[in-house]
């Protein structure tokens, strides 16, 4: 399949990554495994998943994190990264291919205008990986349960963000309240890449023959309340991106397997 083939190609761009000594737990927090009811139906026969424990970055990758990465792997600079792995707007907001600036290009702002390939390569270079869609949604669901956020408040906040994402004035990473899991800004700062973002629908090789077109929400939603719609819209919009896509409100954070932690 297209994604898999290109993914292995992009992996080849990072040559000779020496295994890191281990990820510091300052950076990432442990998300304990457990039972997870999927908020979107990916498979008619499966609703409940048993999740393994994993680690997740406390905050999104920032501009300065990514600058460090491309200084080590200059083949991911915007003037060197092959067009196959990024669209024309990749890192366009940085004043120079290897220099940060002000506002959304500031050191502490979440990295945006980054392709899925580049995000994947970054996490791999840290000794981690992109979280799977289930891991990301599991973390989000657990956080909601622990904070007791109501469905309506969650839906309100998400629809408000989708329609007015504030792409011109992004706050710094890790500034939003961490919440009981110790994870910042899962919602409301930027949308995040996940490893299997095309799982639900895809534009290239058609994993879903019905294509996720007009009126295709009902067969994918277990409930028709506003909270499920808000979650569905996150799945849906990400599914319609291409792995080369970069936008002003799309960033990422990395995940790690427990054995890779210090």
């Amino acid at each position, binding site marked *: 399949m297209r994604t898999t083939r290109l993914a292995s190609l992009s992996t080849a761009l990072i040559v000779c990554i020496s295994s890191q000594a281990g990820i510091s737990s300052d950076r990432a927090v442990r998300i304990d495994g457990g039972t997870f009811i999927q908020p979107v139906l990916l498979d008619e026969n499966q609703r409940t998943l048993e999740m393994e424990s994993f680690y997740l970055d406390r905050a999104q990758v920032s501009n300065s994190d990514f600058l460090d990465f491309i200084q080590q792997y200059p083949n991911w600079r915007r003037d060197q990264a092959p067009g196959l792995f990024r669209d024309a707007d990749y890192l366009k907001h940085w004043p120079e291919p290897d220099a940060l600036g002000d506002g959304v290009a500031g050191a502490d702002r979440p990295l945006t205008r980054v392709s899925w390939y580049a995000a994947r390569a970054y996490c791999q270079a840290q000794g981690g990986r992109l979280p799977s869609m289930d891991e990301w949604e599991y973390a989000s669901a657990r956080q909601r349960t622990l904070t007791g956020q109501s469905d309506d408040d969650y839906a*309100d906040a998400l629809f408000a963000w989708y*329609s007015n994402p504030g792409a*011109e004035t992004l706050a710094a990473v890790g500034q939003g309240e961490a919440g009981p899991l110790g994870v910042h800004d899962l919602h409301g700062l930027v949308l995040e890449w996940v490893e299997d973002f095309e799982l639900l629908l895809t*534009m290239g090789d058609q994993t879903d023959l019905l*294509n996720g077109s*007009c009126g295709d929400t009902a067969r994918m939603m277990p409930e028709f309340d506003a909270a499920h719609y808000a979650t569905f*819209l996150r799945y849906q919009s990400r599914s319609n991106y*291409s792995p080369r896509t970069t*936008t002003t*409100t799309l960033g990422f954070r990395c995940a790690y397997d427990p054995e890779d932690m210090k």
Partner: protein
Amino acid sequence: MQARQLLLTAASMTLALSLAPLTLTADERLKHDGEFMVDGMIFGMPEARVFEEDYDGPPVVGETMTALPHLAPLTHEGNKTHEVRLDTFAQKIEVANGKTFNAWTFGGTVPGPTLHVREGDRVVFTMKNRSDEMVSVTEPVPGGSPFFSQLNENNYLKTEPAVSPMPHSMDFHSGTVAADDKWRTIPPGQSIEFEWVANYPGVFMYHCGTPSVLMHTAMGQYGAVVVSPKEGYDTDDQVDREYVIVQSEYYLRKHGDEYRYDHTAAMNRNPSQVVFNGHVNALNSEPLRANAGERVRLYLMNAGPNDTSSFHVIGAIFDRVWYEGNRENEWRGMQTVLLGASNSAVVEFIVPEEGSYKLVDHEFADAERGAAGTLIAGPRRQ
């Protein structure tokens, strides 16, 4: 299965041969390999092209693209190919006095511009998803369509650039194509180009078809295409005024200083505003104009996304109604025209006297929410 397909193909070929128009041969109207004619209409468009382009020019291009309620007159004879661009991007708009929200738009307005073509015309359509760019529609735009100057003269939506990255698509009800190809979703930064032939006359909706289609349309992504019949309507030479009216609903809730989409209200079909041409005051602050004794033609489109419209003009009777705008569907003497979501009609009435005529959705709960406008008639001109 194969035998059946063969039979169908043979039948289509016979039809194409027997019904091909006298003026143009099939060879002259077919443009690409794979196109074929049935009943004189063209099907089998080439595959859509998805690409990236370094484009920051006018987001609306096409000489017959107009801002509501205008309709560009067709000046060409017979059929032609229209090169049309309609980019999609976010825009802050006002929908009622002081009530603004960040809309997802085609061309920067809600509803988007109206495209006017003739039955049998071909449209080569391009759309760039510019939802992560600030795009202005109020600057003078060389090479842009009449849409821009009309909008500048009466920018009742008070449009301002906004950013809201989101994948989008374009679904023209006036096109007869494979939707999974032509109406496919493209992410921010990508463009799509495809063709369609206006095989059927009428007034057609266009909209974004990306899930949740309810949200994408309720956020503002729709507009109208007017396909004039190739023989015209019988009253063409008697019509004095022509206007386009698109009815639609907003589902908004206050959020800080602005209004935001309310999905629960949209699912419950409980609109905050029901409007003609995108604003509760669009047809009151700038009323439609006519004179006593004139014949007025309205191209009506109910974009929904959910509700019906019972369109009525207080003090007039629709002398002619062509349901969906097809001259075969003619009704006479109607007081009200009922339009479901995505239904349309071409209606005509004779303006009886000097005075003011209210245009309403006669489902009065919707009129009270904004689906009302005015036509002001001046004195009779001899």
